[in-house]
């Protein structure tokens, strides 16, 4: 029902729907308050037992009233109705039921509840084993659960940003406003973040006055002043959900969630806030008291009931009863009566409790049962003498307040139990730079909250050397905090502790019986405190019950760990908003757009997009294209963009000595104008990377790495330069992107290059295999030429400034048209190198050694280098698997990389495993599939037949062990 007063704008009416029914509300309403105003108490079904549930709380701690907002791709499940700002046209639907919300067929689970006790599935669904995956688990997942995802891509936009401040104030209630005001007046940079649509926090929910005026008057005055201070930023509708290292906080601002039409706005923004100091003023969360059947719609937190009445002028239904362990609940009765709501009784377990107004008080009593299938109708009130049923449609319950200290406990510090106030308090210094104030620090009266907020801000700024005078704060109520005498009402039946996960006092008792003594075990065994509400209304009550069972006391029982995010954060906003091709950055080669225009098919290689092959009209299968590219390269000349290989410029007087220590083989002895193949080892002696090293001058080298290791090798070299050998005079810098590098390979490579170089002698005598030079091409363009070969053909790599890469590629293709010039992609590149027996990433997989590649002698014994000593370990020297060529006995058979090699006829298991196939391709040169593999004693087994086992596809293929390379074993082609 709608009450008089409140902080809603009655001059405007908003239309919305719930489960298809049309309702109206007002600006300022939440979905929950509007539903209550429309007499809707039933809002959902519980997780496990499908019990009818209504709203419990009035804020972000809500465990029950979870709804799906919106439809289609925008459907957002598990949204708390208590934090949904009502807007015109809002469509909400209840969750977790089969059939209507009122007649949920899955409610049969409630009758079967003895079967579904905590941990039931660990014990119940044990046999037969195969049934778990196909039958039991899908059934359980269907029966239990909350909302369902739309399974469609999120159509909304999200963004992120970075904020920096001297002081971050988290929470805009009494303490937060006082803190922000105190700090902002000094001129310090302050951010005030509050998750509500309106500043004021609990002040908006109470009927208290400040300086004898409504609290909203003071809030308005403070807001006006805050708005006039340019050094203060107010983030409304912003939840700070994580406290990270070095004063960094994660926050989500709901930019457009509350708008009927977001226009061009992003839906939400993820803020990363770096704060020199922070004040946590997140308030407190009310506790309920478990008693039998305490989960019916209409049973709510007493403070929430007060908030709905005072702020939103809404009440579920009358008459109302209040069950309170503290004086706080009496205020609920008074506030409701002030708005004309009938209060049936106030039940207070304290024998000496006194009525604070003209309502019926039942002291020394507890609520022991309730009735009402889809909503509360009656409550049973039991005193030492008797039990009485009282008609009530709404019951407010309070067992005190828990400081909302989660952000202060996210760095592993455990909250401290305070017996006097009956609550856990944030530990001192739990998060460096963060001070806790107000109700979050146990300073729950308005007077204490205001003053502790101001003091916290002044203290935080003082530690930064900024003096902050305390402001004049209004007079306010200062009721002392007191502990509730009871945590739960013992008795028969089920008394819910965690509403969201359907965990009862019985379940906790069972967990205890099963020897789950630690609260962390209790949590995992019962699922208590999990899911979207993270146990905000249940954790402390649960461990108090646990403490009672163990007799250990609450302080010793302790709390579970808090971890970010404490409130639900959409994955979309954490993802930053980019999806599809923009999901992560891509690196494009200098010839990318040229290749795209040629119709190339691209492949992801790390962050790079590389041309995989260049299909031509009439080619219907990628193999046709690749075979053509390979044959054209071996017959004429092929062109391939190899820019992605890492290039590192190494200069300095000690450049040679530096590289001698990094490469397993010598580099200081390399002659100027020459290139050498090099191996780098990891510290443990295994192969890390290979590549070429060119010496352009006595004190100037260019190192190349594989595409995959360009970053790691550069980082390693920088580490070596700065930390391992700072005495060496070496300067390094990456030039990977600076130069476009094109491989020109094939018997016609020299003839083609002669057409583009500016008077440079390419003859074998002047520029032999493994030579390098700086030169100019195409009429004066600076360039670098390396005579190196990955394909086994006469080959060069020509580098020009990246901006000219595409033009050079095009020029080479045109100039070499009569020579058969053909662009080729990574697929043909792979075939060419496998035919030549060259190692690549598949062979350098982190488990292999130089010896396995047949390059053991490249690890120089005459000098030391990273990994050299470890490469001579006994275990590594004993390794007998070496790289061999593999060819199917039946040329029609496939060769599959990853297959393992066995002696034919032997059992196939780990003990008899003799190696594996690293790379495989179809060789157009040989007309069959071929492979490279590591085979035990492979060098002595040439000509032998081995079995390649591919159990994933049930393949057994007979392969002959052949020498490498498959083509041009004498290497004449690349040296001619």
């Amino acid at each position: 029902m709608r009450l008089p007063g409140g902080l809603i704008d009655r001059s405007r009416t908003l239309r919305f729907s719930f489960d298809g029914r049309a309702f109206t509300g007002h600006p300022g309403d939440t979905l929950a308050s509007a539903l209550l105003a429309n007499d809707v108490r039933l809002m959902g079904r519980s997780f496990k037992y499908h019990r009818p549930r209504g709203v419990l709380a009035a804020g972000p701690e809500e465990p029950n009233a979870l709804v799906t907002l919106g439809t289609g791709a925008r459907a957002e499940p598990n949204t708390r109705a208590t934090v949904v700002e009502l807007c015109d046209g809002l469509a909400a639907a209840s969750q977790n039921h089969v059939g209507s919300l009122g007649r949920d067929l899955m409610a049969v689970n409630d009758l079967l509840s003895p079967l579904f006790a905590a941990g039931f599935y660990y014990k119940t669904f044990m046999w037969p084993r195969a049934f778990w995956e196909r039958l039991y688990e899908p059934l359980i997942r269907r029966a239990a659960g909350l909302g369902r995802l739309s399974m469609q891509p999120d159509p909304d936009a999200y963004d992120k940003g970075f904020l920096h401040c001297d002081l971050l104030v988290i929470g805009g209630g009494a303490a937060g406003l006082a803190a922000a005001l105190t700090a902002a007046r000094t001129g310090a940079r302050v951010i005030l973040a509050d998750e509500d649509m309106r500043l004021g926090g609990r002040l908006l929910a109470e009927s208290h006055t400040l300086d004898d005026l409504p609290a909203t008057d003071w809030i308005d005055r403070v807001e006006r002043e805050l708005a006039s201070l340019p050094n203060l930023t107010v983030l409304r509708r912003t939840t700070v959900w994580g406290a990270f290292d070095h004063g960094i906080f994660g926050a989500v601002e709901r930019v457009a969630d509350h708008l009927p039409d977001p226009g061009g706005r992003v839906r939400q923004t993820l803020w990363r806030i770096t704060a020199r100091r922070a004040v946590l003023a997140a308030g407190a969360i009310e506790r309920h008291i478990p008693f039998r059947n305490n989960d019916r719609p209409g049973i709510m937190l007493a403070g929430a009931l007060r908030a709905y009445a005072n702020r939103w002028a809404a009440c579920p239904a009358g008459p109302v009863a209040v069950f309170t362990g503290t004086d706080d609940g009496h205020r609920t009765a008074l506030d409701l009566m002030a708005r004309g709501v009938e209060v049936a009784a106030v039940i207070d377990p304290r024998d000496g409790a006194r009525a604070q107004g003209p309502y019926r008080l039942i002291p020394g009593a507890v609520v022991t049962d309730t009735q009402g299938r889809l909503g509360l109708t009656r409550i049973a009130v039991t005193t030492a003498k008797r039990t009485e049923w009282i008609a009530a449609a709404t019951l407010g319950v309070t067992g005190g307040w828990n400081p909302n200290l989660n952000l202060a406990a996210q760095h592993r510090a455990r909250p401290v139990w305070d017996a006097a106030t009956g609550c856990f308090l944030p530990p001192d210094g739990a998060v460096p730079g963060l001070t806790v104030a107000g109700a979050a620090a146990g300073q729950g009266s308005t007077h204490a909250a205001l003053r502790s907020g101001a003091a916290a801000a002044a203290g935080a700024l003082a530690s930064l050397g900024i003096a902050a005078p305390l402001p004049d704060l209004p007079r306010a109520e200062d009721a002392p905090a007191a502990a509730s005498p009871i945590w739960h009402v013992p008795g028969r039946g089920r008394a819910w502790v965690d509403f969201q996960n359907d965990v009862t006092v019985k379940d906790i008792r069972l967990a205890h019986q099963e020897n789950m003594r630690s609260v962390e075990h209790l949590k995992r065994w019962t699922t208590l405190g999990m899911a979207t509400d993270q146990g905000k209304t249940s954790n402390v009550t649960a461990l108090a019950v646990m403490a009672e069972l163990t007799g250990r006391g609450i302080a010793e029982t302790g709390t579970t760990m808090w971890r970010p995010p404490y409130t639900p954060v959409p994955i979309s906003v954490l993802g930053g908003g980019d999806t599809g091709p923009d999901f992560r950055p891509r690196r494009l080669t200098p010839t990318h757009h040229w290749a795209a225009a040629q119709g190339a098919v691209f492949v992801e290689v790390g962050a790079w997009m590389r041309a995989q092959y260049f299909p031509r009209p009439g080619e219907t299968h990628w193999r046709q294209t690749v075979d053509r590219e390979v044959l054209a390269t071996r017959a004429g000349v092929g062109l391939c963009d190899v820019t992605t290989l890492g290039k590192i410029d190494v200069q300095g007087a000690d450049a040679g000595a530096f590289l001698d220590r990094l490469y397993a083989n010598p580099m200081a002895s390399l002659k100027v104008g020459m290139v050498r193949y090099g191996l780098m080892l990891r510290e443990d002696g295994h192969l890390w990377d290979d590549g070429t090293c060119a010496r352009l001058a006595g004190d100037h080298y260019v190192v190349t790495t594989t595409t995959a290791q360009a970053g790691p090798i550069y980082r390693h070299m920088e580490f070596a330069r700065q930390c391992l050998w700072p005495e060496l005079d070496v300067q390094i810098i990456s030039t990977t992107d600076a130069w476009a590098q094109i491989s020109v390979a094939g018997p016609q490579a020299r003839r083609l290059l002669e057409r583009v170089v500016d008077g440079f002698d390419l003859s074998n005598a002047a520029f032999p295999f493994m030579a390098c030079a700086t030169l100019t091409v195409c009429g004066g363009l600076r360039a670098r030429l390396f005579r190196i070969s990955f394909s086994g053909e006469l080959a060069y790599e020509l580098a020009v400034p990246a901006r000219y890469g595409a033009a050079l590629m095009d020029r080479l293709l045109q100039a070499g048209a009569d020579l058969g010039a053909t662009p080729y992609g990574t697929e043909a590149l792979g075939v060419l190198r496998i035919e030549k027996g060259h190692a690549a990433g598949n062979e350098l997989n982190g488990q292999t050694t130089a010896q396995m590649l047949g390059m053991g002698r490249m690890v120089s014994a005459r000098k030391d280098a990273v990994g050299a000593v470890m490469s001579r370990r006994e275990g590594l020297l004993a390794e007998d698997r070496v790289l061999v060529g593999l060819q199917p006995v039946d040329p029609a058979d496939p060769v599959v990389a990853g297959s393992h090699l066995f002696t034919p006829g032997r059992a196939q298991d780990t003990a008899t495993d003799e190696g594996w196939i690293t790379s495989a391709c179809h060789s157009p040169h040989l007309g069959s599939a071929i492979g490279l593999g590591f085979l035990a004693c492979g060098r002595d087994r040439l000509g032998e037949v081995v079995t390649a086992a591919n159990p994933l596809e049930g393949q057994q293929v007979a392969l002959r062990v052949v020498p490498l390379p498959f083509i041009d074993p004498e290497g004449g082609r690349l040296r001619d």
Partner: protein
Amino acid sequence: MTDLRPVTALGGETPARLQAGGHTLREIGDMGLASLALRQGAAEPAPFGLALPGPGQWQAGAEVAAFWTGPGQWMIERPGRADSDIAAELAPLCPGCSVTEQTDAFACFEIAAADGAAMDRLLARLVNLDPARLRPGSAQRTGFEHLPVFVIRRAGDRVAMLGMRSAAGSLWHALARIVTREAAR
């Protein structure tokens, strides 16, 4: 002079440009760049008469500018000279130093806002650098959309971002989106 035609980092014949409200995003296609690192015992040079800046700083001179990239290391900017052999020009002016051409190692973008305050607001959406401390003349290495970049505040209302040339498309995509959204706010 070569007859090959260069393309910009974004692959166009002319630099890309985007106007959104009071914000302008431009691709700088003709910035010549070279790294400069002191060798052991070398004196700090003053190439083209420019006093090299200290940590976190950018210094502009006549047709040349430099920003600090590490101890004894700078990047030298030569606006309009991307096509020249900038390393060969710079090396003789920096005896005892290692000089490496970096012109095409980077894509360079510049953003202009209506004023310094607008740029401060935009910076909050761009990078995790405190705009209040990134005053004109500052240069920082930081991360942007998972990519390493240099951010230079050339003036209160003008910021340059240099990132890997190969990732120019991704950088532009992110910059354009952020600038457009900020202009619409």
